[in-house]
């Protein structure tokens, strides 16, 4: 039975109408957007546009309704309550909201349960995206807490057993990616959340590479906080989401302050709204929220079970294709192991930039570089790799095109000669 995803859904994407031969294998960096998303945003801006949450006009009411409706769509998509979804600039911003809020609490500006002190520990993995590493480094530097991490092996992988060795009653935060943006490894989230509860630590889930590609029920997974970005899940840039359990979000100090997030303000002092609005300072990315909501609705329409099955098939084909080319080394889970449809690899004797250039010349868009994960690449003994990552519109033909082009790389650069 042919999957309804892949080729058939490409008709929904203006980008593929404009570039029918494009082999777009860079969804892990940013996705293309269906017309439903583009139109939702455009229609909103062209006719309904007005200030949200401020003033009393009918137009403001309509705009506010569309904005909050988008929040419900996104919340429903990830199994969250609507008060549990905060708009952020991107996932990076959402991670910073947590770390900076904890820094404020540590400086005495908010709920003590978020305060860190010398002796406290923050645990991450060596595979994290810089967005889920540097904010914790800075938080540790500000509070005297210690940053600890679980190391990766020569494929870039870590295990929960190794993580257990690092976690202790001193651990206050465990921050990790649901799906690694370099290796495609899927973390055992529920087990780690249980481990965190045992030691009384908060869990922070970087769900950037999972939410767009598989059914994710954040409430059910039992994590405390999570983040994801609209632009990786068929939505616009300029918006991302912070998820937090309602009770925690209401207590976390808002690092960014300004209009629309307050109750009473005097020259000396300001009181803040409950979540989610306490974190939404200033004019929000309104049309972007509407687009983000439409993206969630579009994916829900495809069905995330179907998306996962489709991408599972692509993942297997990607692994098979990459491993079939002599001189190409796959990073991440080996063939047959569970993984996402996101694969990074090294070509013996050819720099990733040069690999990417040849692929680009063949109409294949991939990502080259350190993918914002320098420590992981350092552990692998390289500065950069090439990454091919799929989405709902990816096809087995895309994978075949990659295989063929990869087969030519070492020859073109004269490494085989």
């Amino acid at each position: 039975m042919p999957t309804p995803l892949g080729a058939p859904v490409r008709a929904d994407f203006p980008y593929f109408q404009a570039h029918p031969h494009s082999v777009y294998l860079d969804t892990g960096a940013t996705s293309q957007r269906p017309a439903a998303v583009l139109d939702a945003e455009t229609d909103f801006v062209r006719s309904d546009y007005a200030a949200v949450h401020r003033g009393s006009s009918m137009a403001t009411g309509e705009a506010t309704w569309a904005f909050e409706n988008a929040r419900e769509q996104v919340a429903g998509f990830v199994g969250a309550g609507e008060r549990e979804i905060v708009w952020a600039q991107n996932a990076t911003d959402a991670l910073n909201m947590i770390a900076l809020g904890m820094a404020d609490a540590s400086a005495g500006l908010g709920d003590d349960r978020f305060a860190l002190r010398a002796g406290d520990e923050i645990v991450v993995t060596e595979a994290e995206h810089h967005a889920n590493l540097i904010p914790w480094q800075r938080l540790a530097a500000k509070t005297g807490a210690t940053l600890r991490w679980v190391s990766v092996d020569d494929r870039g992988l870590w295990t929960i057993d190794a993580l257990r060795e690092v976690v202790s009653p001193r651990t206050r935060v465990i921050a990790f990616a649901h799906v690694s943006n370099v290796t495609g490894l899927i973390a055992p989230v529920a087990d780690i959340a249980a481990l965190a509860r045992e030691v009384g630590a908060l869990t922070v889930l970087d769900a950037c590479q999972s939410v767009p590609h598989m059914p994710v029920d954040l409430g059910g997974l039992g994590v405390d906080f999570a983040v994801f970005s609209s632009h990786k899940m068929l939505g616009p840039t300029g918006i991302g989401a912070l998820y937090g359990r309602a009770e925690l979000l209401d207590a976390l100090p808002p690092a960014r302050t300004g209009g629309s997030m307050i109750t009473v303000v005097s020259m000396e002092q300001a009181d803040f709204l409950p979540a989610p609005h306490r974190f939404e300072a200033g004019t929000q990315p309104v049309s972007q929220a509407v687009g983000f909501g439409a993206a969630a609705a579009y994916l829900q329409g495809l069905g995330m079970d179907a998306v996962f099955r489709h991408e599972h098939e692509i993942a297997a084909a990607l692994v098979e294709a990459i491993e079939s080319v002599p001189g190409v080394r796959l990073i991440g889970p080996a063939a047959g192991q569970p993984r996402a449809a996101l694969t990074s690899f090294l070509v013996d004797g050819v720099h990733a930039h040069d690999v990417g250039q040849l692929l680009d010349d063949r109409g294949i868009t991939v990502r080259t570089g350190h993918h914002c994960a320098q420590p992981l690449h350092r552990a692998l003994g390289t500065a950069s790799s090439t990454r091919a990552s799929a989405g709902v519109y990816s096809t087995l033909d895309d994978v075949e095109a990659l295989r063929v082009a990869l087969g030519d790389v070492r020859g073109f650069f004269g490494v085989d000669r």
Partner: protein
Amino acid sequence: MSGLEAMYQELILDHAKTPEGKGDPSGHPFTHHELNPSCGDEITLGITVEEGRIAGLDWDGQGCSISMSSASIMSELLTGASRTDALARIEEFREMMRSRGKVEPSEALGDAAAFQNTAKYVMRVKCAMLAWVALEADLKASLAA
């Protein structure tokens, strides 16, 4: 009748000008302060509960004619009501206000039915709800006491 006239019926404007129940809430055992942060409107509402009924109710506050008349009409409707009835009326009022004017009020809402038109204006729903939310908080506090 324009949307504006439907919203500001004579009844509503009259209540706004000569409000019922406006007085000093501080003598009551249960008082609650409620604020609409988007405009600064506020109300403090106090109640005395005797044998499960709202035996006394006073409120003070400042706000637009919707929030003030809503407080007034609610005072008239619910002073003397049983706690159970009052909570049910608050829930019905909330449902009507959240329906963007689609849910028809039952007879039990009395003059408060006049706010059905306000419900079409999303930004004014909070104005109309202000007193009702305060009363709900007082009633819940009295239940917990």
